[in-house]
């Protein structure tokens, strides 16, 4: 809200205030979102300390007998050695694998992972051939993650950027508190998906459970199947040609395009009736705070 005074805000309509405060999907900013929209800026792809890796340098790691810490340390050591492709074998539902990878990498997981798989990542392209447990891709910043089977609850919680894709069905509270990026689900999603969503887009090709988009601030949810019920302040919106073009592009990219196309998708957005931001509060209160 830099450069906007209280008096200017008070003179604005609600729509204008929203835009001035940068609270809509039309005013994207932040590192991860810039990565998505400015792919030519090389320096945004890498952290200064990130190791140089080469995609054609490949290493396989068998998880048998390894703890989660040992496995993640082995992966980091492999990246330090320049390996740009890492293959994980026999993970058998192991938790917290691949968390915090902050550089370019192709990560292939030949099996299933447990909780918190590839959370807090910024950059890698991940393919998991099995399923994942709760909180896969939590706080993900950029990159792509594709899960071939099903996923547990809180899939993509608080995701900020990148594409998080599950070809199967996911559990409840998908995209809870998401702040950017794209979540794509080939099957169904459970209750309270998009709960308190703030930005970003979610596509679900199948059905959605109850209370979809409950208390969402912003962002967009596209549902291809039936919606059991909408949450508080989640409303239907018109599916525009731009939406259809974007849906087609994203679903074709991940080979999840439904046979009947995308025209039947429901578009869910925030009704914005619950909005009550600080810009509407008296100056006295702001001084105290």
């Amino acid at each position, binding site marked *: 809200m830099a450069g906007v005074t209280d008096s200017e805000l008070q003179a604005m309509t609600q729509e204008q205030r929203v835009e001035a405060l940068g609270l809509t999907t039309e005013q994207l900013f932040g590192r991860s979102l810039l990565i998505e929209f400015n792919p030519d800026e090389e320096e945004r792809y890498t952290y200064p300390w990130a190791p140089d890796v080469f995609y054609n340098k490949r290493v396989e790691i068998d998880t048998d007998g390894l703890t989660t810490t040992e496995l993640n340390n082995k992966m980091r050591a492999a990246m330090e050695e320049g390996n740009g492709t890492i293959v994980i074998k026999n993970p*058998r*539902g*192991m938790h917290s694998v691949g968390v915090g990878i902050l550089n370019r990498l192709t990560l292939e997981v030949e099996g*299933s992972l*447990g909780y918190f798989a590839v959370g807090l990542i910024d950059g890698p392209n991940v393919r998991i051939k099995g*399923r994942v447990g709760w909180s896969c891709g939590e706080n993900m910043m950029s990159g792509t993650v594709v899960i071939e089977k099903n996923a547990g609850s809180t899939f993509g919680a608080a995701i900020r950027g990148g594409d998080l894709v599950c070809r199967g*069905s996911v559990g409840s509270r998908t995209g809870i508190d998401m702040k950017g990026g794209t979540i794509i689900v080939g099957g169904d999603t*459970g209750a309270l998906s998009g709960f308190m969503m703030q930005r970003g887009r979610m596509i679900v090709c199948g059905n959605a459970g109850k209370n979809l988009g409950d208390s969402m601030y912003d962002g967009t949810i596209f549902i291809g199947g039936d919606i059991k019920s909408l949450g508080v302040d989640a409303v239907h919106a018109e599916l525009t040609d731009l939406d259809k073009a974007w849906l087609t592009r994203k679903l074709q990219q991940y080979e999840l395009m439904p046979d009947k196309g995308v025209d039947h998708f429901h578009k869910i957005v925030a009704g914005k009736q619950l909005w009550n931001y600080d810009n509407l509060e008296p100056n006295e209160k702001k001084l105290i705070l």
Partner: protein
Amino acid sequence: MCGIAGLIHKGKSSNVGSEMTAMLQALKHRGPDSTGFAVYGEPTEGDYIMRVKCAEREDMESGRGFTEVLHKRIADVEALLAEHKAVVKAKEQATAYALRYLISHDGDTEDMARHIEELEGVEILSLGNGLELIKDLGDAAVVSDTYGLGDFQGTHGIGHTRMATESDVDIRSAHPYWAFPYNDVSVVHNGQITNYWIKRRQMEQKGHRFMSNCDSELLAVYTADNLANGVSLEESLKRSIDEIDGVFTYLVATKDQLGMAKDTMAAKPLVLYESDDLIAMASEEVAIRAILPEEIDTTDPYDEEVRVWQA
């Protein structure tokens, strides 16, 4: 947090004891305080298996004088069995305080059980034709080894690793829970029941007994009450979604069935594997992978989902 697990083989017996041990050991990180098993063997028609606990672990550390107290309690249990004309066919003692009796009895089994539990410090852990309920402090490997569960053959079982949040770290607060008047029912639970006291008072007014202050025991009593009144297991599980408040995922086993229910928020995890001859479920997939290391397809049941499988 707690971890729950269950499995059921369709139409055949297997080494359920070692399978449940492996699954619960994989869930040890979800609850290190105590571990419990409810495993079901071939029903012994006409005979009953009674698992009884005559002291808590901490009682055993209260001094040499307690040994005499314990012996007296065990003698009193056996005197009451004789008084109710129960014939003890076999007796096993895994620990100083935990006993297993194979008995034949033609009378009112519930009346006998209530008399036995009137003895101070004595709790019947399970009573039924096929159910063996074992629970103690420690992880799955320790409890299984102590009670010789590794060789147990049966059709199905459920188990629990407990992180104590609502009540003490002791055997009476460990899962699974059994409850009469319905024999062979057992329950394991992950979650919190928020209308526990209201429902407990309702059940107590009906004459049901509670042996602990653990909210999970309510689910066992509630289920046993429903089953004893002719309600099917599936219907009981469905009713619980509306009648029990809180966040919960729980498993129920009877002589020949295994069921699951998830609350309206789906706040507690469960991963499910189904094949033609085996159903396995657990709080985390690592537990299922402990008995099925090959690549498998699993799903997460949704909110308000109820399932029942037949052995």
